[in-house]
């Protein structure tokens, strides 16, 4: 065998070797995800039942459930979504469609990139001082929802900008040529066409928010909540004045969320509570992975429907 043939053969083996290495690392990474899901299922699936979903936390592991955590997560997400979506979409539209390229926009862009990387617990510290004490919101659903809204704001802004950027320039030019103002172009063309892209980003952002634990622990969300926030227009107990609850009284209520409930159970001694933690983890992971799957479906449908 000549030396050149040996070199060629060696290089071919090199390539094959790397193929194997790359593919196996990818598989290992995915296997870890699989192991995580299986381990949760093994420990927690037995605990998962209707009564687990519908019960309040308890000192006795077998009677404890995640009703208050599920409802708390839901209410917090409502506040987060209603704050972060309008604010983030508006900011994204401004940065992509209105702002000129000057130093101020450059500052805003660096700022958003930085905000996206600020550790979530730092948002919690800010919220603790600003929302809980300065604004006097206390450890309420409103404070928690606003905290997570600020946390996902950069994700919503970036998603909005990318969705707008993918709309070809000639759509805008055609609308301007018909005499539309800039706002009309945004309102009647750009926003409708970018809804799919924005929705994808918003869903991913919410899936991140639903799993966030640290900032809510920092603002003092409780770990043991055996009541539900007042449902709007439900009857108020007589000893509390009677009548009906107002539409927004739940905002002031104390709360816990799923990841905090899970964290609480993980840090307790005893296998029974660990099974509870695993069961809460299953619910949590189904929620986040489900939202991510939904985002992928929305994105794929949008890609199929819109061809510029």
């Amino acid at each position, binding site marked *: 065998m000549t030396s050149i043939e040996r070199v060629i053969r060696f*290089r071919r083996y*090199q*390539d094959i070797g*790397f*193929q194997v*290495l*790359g*593919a196996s*690392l*990818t598989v290992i*990474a*995915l296997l*870890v*995800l699989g*192991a*995580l899901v299986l*381990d*949760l299922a093994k420990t927690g699936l037995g605990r998962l039942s209707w009564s687990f979903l519908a019960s309040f936390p308890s000192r006795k592991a077998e009677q404890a459930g995640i009703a208050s955590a599920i409802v708390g997560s839901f209410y917090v997400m409502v506040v987060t979504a209603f704050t972060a979506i*309008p*604010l983030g979409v*508006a*900011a994204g539209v*401004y940065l992509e469609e*209105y702002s000129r390229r000057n130093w101020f926009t450059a500052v*805003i862009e*660096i*700022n958003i*990139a*930085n905000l*996206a*990387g*600020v*550790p*979530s*617990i*730092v948002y*919690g*510290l*800010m919220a*603790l*001082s*600003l929302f809980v004490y300065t604004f006097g919101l206390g450890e309420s659903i409103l404070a928690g929802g606003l905290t997570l809204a600020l946390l996902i*704001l950069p994700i919503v*802004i970036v998603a909005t900008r990318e969705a707008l950027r993918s709309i070809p320039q000639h759509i805008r030019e055609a609308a301007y040529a018909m005499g539309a*103002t*800039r*706002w009309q172009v945004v309102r009647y063309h750009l926003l409708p066409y970018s809804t799919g892209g924005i929705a994808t980003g918003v869903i991913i952002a919410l899936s*991140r928010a639903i*799993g966030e*634990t*640290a900032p809510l622990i*920092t603002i003092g969300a409780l*770990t043991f909540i055996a009541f539900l926030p007042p449902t709007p227009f439900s009857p108020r107990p007589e000893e509390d004045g009677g009548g009906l609850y107002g539409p927004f009284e739940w905002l002031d209520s104390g709360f816990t969320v799923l990841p905090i409930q*899970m*964290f609480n159970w*993980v840090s307790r001694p005893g296998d029974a509570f660990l099974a509870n933690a695993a069961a809460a983890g299953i619910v949590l*992971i189904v929620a986040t*992975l489900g939202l*991510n799957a939904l985002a*992928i479906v929305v994105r794929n449908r949008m890609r199929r429907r819109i061809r510029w």
Partner: protein
Amino acid sequence: MVQPRDAAQAAKPVERSVPRADAAASMRFRRAVVDRAMQGVLGLAAASSIAVTLGIVYILISESVPFFRAVGLKTFLTDTMWTPQFAVPRYGIVPLLMGTLVTTMVALAVALPAGSIIAIWLSEFAPARLRETVKPVLELLAAVPTVVYGYFALLFVTPLLQRLWPDLPTFNMLGAGLVMGIMIIPYVSSLSEDAMRAVPMLLREGSFAVGGNKIVTATRVVFPAALSGIAAAYVLGISRAVGETMIVAVAAGQQPLILDPARPLDAMNPGQPGATITAFIVSVSLGDVQHGEIGYQAIFAAGLTLFVATLGFNVAGYLLRKRFRQAY
């Protein structure tokens, strides 16, 4: 048939041209007002992101100023003990910084090599359809809530490690760091892969033409050409690791490292429990700390340290990413 109807319609505005012009003018005016107002509203929304940053900076500084007055910046940075709960509390940030450093190093030892190799494989070796399937699935690794990862590190990875190394304590930085590394893989691999795929085909063809094989082309041509994007991915991965909270709070323990001046390298051993800056903030928040006392202020001082550390990484990552986007 068609002609006259068009003509009739065209004639109509002429008959009522005066009121119509008024209406048109008022509509134009209203549109202009709405347009201006919306520009203002949207601009305010964009400026709110600046307000958030200013709010964070202002609060971290103003809440930790009394702490630094009481403790002293020099003590904070050079004291080697962090014992806020002791009768004579000591506030040296170094043990917490060491905890953060060790868990971050373990995580990066997993995430940077694995993320880079996966990125090279996806970008240069894997068929396009496989890549488009694998990438979103891999990104799910970053979507799993971190408290679930904490559970996984404490109750799956650590027991596994204890089989290899029976002396390993239940709470240890090794298991937490490894799991954190897995979580960070997609942050590194996705952005690196984007950067490598942005490298023009011409460069690869040049390398193939002079006899390069795929792996040589990937590592000596594509990888260097995409370096600023890959560096951005690394830097953002580091920033994630430094700021990660729940995994370390659950699995690495909440006791600060005890530094022994005689054997400073002992602190670098990941096979021991160690609190990070983030874990410390969590453990204080779970406890019963009153607004305004020094323990409350200490978490803001710790948060400020964390913010400053990640700020540098985040801005560097942004600038590097911008460079790789403009390169070709």
